[in-house]
């Protein structure tokens, strides 16, 4: 439990200087003054309306109480009145609050109906929660879906206080979700393991990601920019480490990004059909390891929530048992089936990496074709 090294380092490192203290909900308006989403601005307005009604009632109730505490003290020699029960007053303080509530319910209802208006979306994105990352899949009418995982990009050194924390500490990912501006985007939200919740405060979208069920949400973001959020349903040990990062870009830039993604997918597919040299596999494998394995298995393969990789009998034993763990996961543990999450080339690279890094010098080279043939049995 105790992490003395990290504790000692804490005192030495200053926090990033530009952290700001925000004390209220996102207004739905960007710093430049542009509306980010109509719905976000509306929800903020609703929130403030209810807040001010509460403040007004509070001033009334607490005012009466404070005056009473000041004026009706025994030390002032007052004689207690013995009055009690007054039908008129009692009816009034039942009926008046009821009408105030009706007043609140009207705008609340209309806003809620807008939240639920999922019709006429121009594009759909399947958002899947995993322990502890998000997968985004752009649904394509021709079945040419683009899918990728979005992992926490903050380094373990920053988390364990041996490196200065960056501006977007814990709110940055390796591959953000990219959506075009002024486009109605429908999110289909689900989960692969436990319940997660996908939330971006500034665009006012939060919906639980529930395994086996698909929830719908939508947004139309009007201001380009980067919007950040986090998982908001306890989903296990690293619940605090699966942020959401959304880049809202112009339609042209979005099209370019999409084309690049398709190109990269084609390159990966081509790579999978060739033999890669060992140093390329190792470099790629290290990237995959850092994104997908490190949180549980440690930066040096020393283990943690998961077993140690360094010196592991699995990573240094036969290839098939090793691929079995990576591709199929281990039932009943946090070890997921990465065969469904990583491309064959990435599985090959990370397997090669694990078999040759951290002192596991097996000398084995695993190619994508080995993974394909393993999967085919």
């Amino acid at each position, binding site marked *: 439990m105790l992490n003395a090294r990290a504790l000692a380092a804490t005192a030495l490192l200053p926090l990033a200087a530009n952290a700001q203290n925000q004390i209220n909900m996102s207004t739905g308006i960007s710093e430049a003054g542009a509306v980010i989403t109509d719905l976000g601005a509306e929800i903020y307005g609703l929130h403030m309306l209810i807040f001010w009604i509460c403040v007004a009632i509070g001033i009334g109730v607490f005012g009466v109480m404070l005056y009473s505490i000041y004026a*009706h003290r025994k030390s002032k020699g007052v004689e207690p009145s013995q009055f009690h029960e007054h039908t008129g007053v*009692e009816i009034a303080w039942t009926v008046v609050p009821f009408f105030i*509530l009706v007043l609140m319910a009207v705008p609340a209802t209309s806003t809620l109906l807008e939240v639920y208006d999922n019709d006429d979306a121009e594009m759909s994105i399947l958002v899947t929660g995993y322990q502890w990352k998000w997968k985004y899949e752009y649904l394509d009418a021709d079945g040419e879906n683009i899918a990728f995982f979005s992992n926490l990009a903050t380094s373990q050194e920053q988390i364990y206080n041996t490196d200065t924390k960056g501006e977007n500490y814990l709110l940055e990912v390796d591959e953000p979700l990219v959506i075009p501006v002024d486009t109605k985007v429908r999110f289909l939200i689900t989960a692969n393991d436990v319940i997660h919740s996908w939330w971006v405060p500034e665009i006012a979208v939060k919906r639980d990601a529930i395994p086996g069920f698909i929830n719908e949400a939508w947004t139309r973001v009007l201001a380009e920019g980067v919007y950040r959020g986090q998982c908001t349903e306890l989903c296990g040990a690293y619940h605090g480490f699966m942020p959401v990062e959304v880049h809202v870009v112009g339609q042209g830039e979005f099209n370019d990004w999409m084309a690049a993604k398709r190109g990269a997918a084609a390159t990966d597919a081509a790579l999978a059909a060739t033999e890669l040299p060992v140093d390329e596999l190792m470099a790629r494998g290290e990237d995959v390891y850092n994104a997908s394995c490190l949180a549980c298995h440690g930066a040096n393969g020393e283990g943690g929530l998961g077993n140690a990789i360094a010196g592991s009998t699995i990573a240094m034993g036969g290839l098939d048992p090793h691929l079995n763990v990576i591709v199929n996961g281990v039932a009943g543990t946090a070890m997921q089936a990465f065969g469904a999450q990583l491309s064959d080339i990435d599985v090959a690279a990370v397997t090669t990496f694990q078999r040759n890094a951290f002192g596991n010098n097996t000398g084995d080279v695993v190619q994508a074709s080995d993974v394909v043939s393993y999967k085919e049995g």
Partner: protein
Amino acid sequence: MGDHHHGPAKGLSRWLYTTNHKDIGTMYLWFSFAMFLLGGAFAMVIRAELFQPGMQLVEPGFFNQMTTLHGLVMVFGAIMPSFVGLANWLIPMMIGAPDMALPRMNNWSFWILPPAFLMLASTLLMEGGAPAFGWTFYAPLSTTYAPPSVTFFIFAIHILGVSSIMGSINIIATVMNMRAPGMTYMKMPLFVWTWLITAFLLVAVMPVLAGAVTMMLMDIHFGTSFFSAAGGGDPVLFQHIFWFFGHPEVYIIILPAFGVISQIIPAFSRKPLFGYASMVYATAGIAFLSFIVWAHHMYTVGMPVAGELFFMYATMLIAVPTGVKVFNWVTTMWRGAMTFETPMLFSIGFLVLFTIGGFTGLMLSIAPADFQYHDTYFVVAHFHYVMVAGAVFSMTAAVYFWLPKWTGRMYNETMGKVHFWVSFIGFNVTFFPQHFVGLAGMPRRIPDYALQFADFNMMSSIGAFIYGMSQLLFLYNVIAAIVSGEKVSDEKVWDGAEGLEWTLPSPAPYHTFETPPKLEEQPAY
């Protein structure tokens, strides 16, 4: 009185075999205070880790065990048993009964609690660690993905449920059958009323919780799929069942607190409670509404919009009877002749802070806004305003108020006032900033956070340490009063206090009201 009865047995057997409501009440109160300190220690670990961004003291998995056990121990170990202890001590004395109706069951309902909590605490030492899925234990995190200790957790919950149901049956039987002649329902002190209604809530919903954990047990060990979509079940079903228990549960916690406040504010205002009847009806109204609002905890699970609207409207309605309560207390103070001894200070603290918790509750009831509040620190702040400043403050007020009657000795008033002010300030420094970080986007149950939340979290942690320390002062004051406090000789310790318990000697003898009291002079209030 009571010469023909022997006094308490000596030594340990007195406590093991006792069927005396006062002994059992005392054990409940000490047990709950021990759990309060244990749950508080878990909270201190949480706040120490959150003192600064970055992981310092504990690992994320252990952090989750702390949040889970903090919630479970505080709800089931500290707050609920403390009010049962209060009920044991006070209900027989308030209604003029010699004891509880079912004294042997009373002994049993207490003595199964310590083993249950021992088992729950022992999960910390088990392989895989203690439950780490939050006190709301949502499936499938608490089933398929749970540590092996979950089975012990389930068994502990079962025992707590049995204990609560037995305690509630006892209270219902006592109140219905053992009131002194002339004490009609509408003459019962409000504390008795609120507990009677609470007992019905408990009997209604504890079996639902038992059902939920049993279904979990089946899913984990016997291959069923109640909460797994892969086998035809539904994880959201778990949440519906849990909150069908869980929402009445919060009123189970707060209604006896309302009862306490309704006894103390009139006593120190030297003025009858303004609207006795409307308080009873408001309590019943809140209890009824508590059964039809559960899904407001689940606005983001993807319910159909009609369901969202129903639960939003029903939840907003709770503001009406709750408002009636607050208005009644304030009107009771109005034109009274108030003094501000420690019980009154804690009651006024309750009134102010609980009302703030009520306001944030009203904000949370607004479904579209809740999409922004849900599962953030705003919720954490809200429920600590009602749980700590509500239930715990009222419980503290109750201990100071009735301690002289229980022990025949007075606590140190100055120290009591210091305890109040340090608690009040510590509490607000802890929880008020949590509204800000919650609105700004900090999710609950995270061991580490983005840098923009750093200042308020540090403030929160400092406040928590202050609040935690102030409870040791409370412990000292109570023990010092019992050991060497100034003796009180008056039956009526507080000049404004009304009720049958204040007609008894101080300390209250081991057996009281063996012959029922006469009620003519007792006012209705």
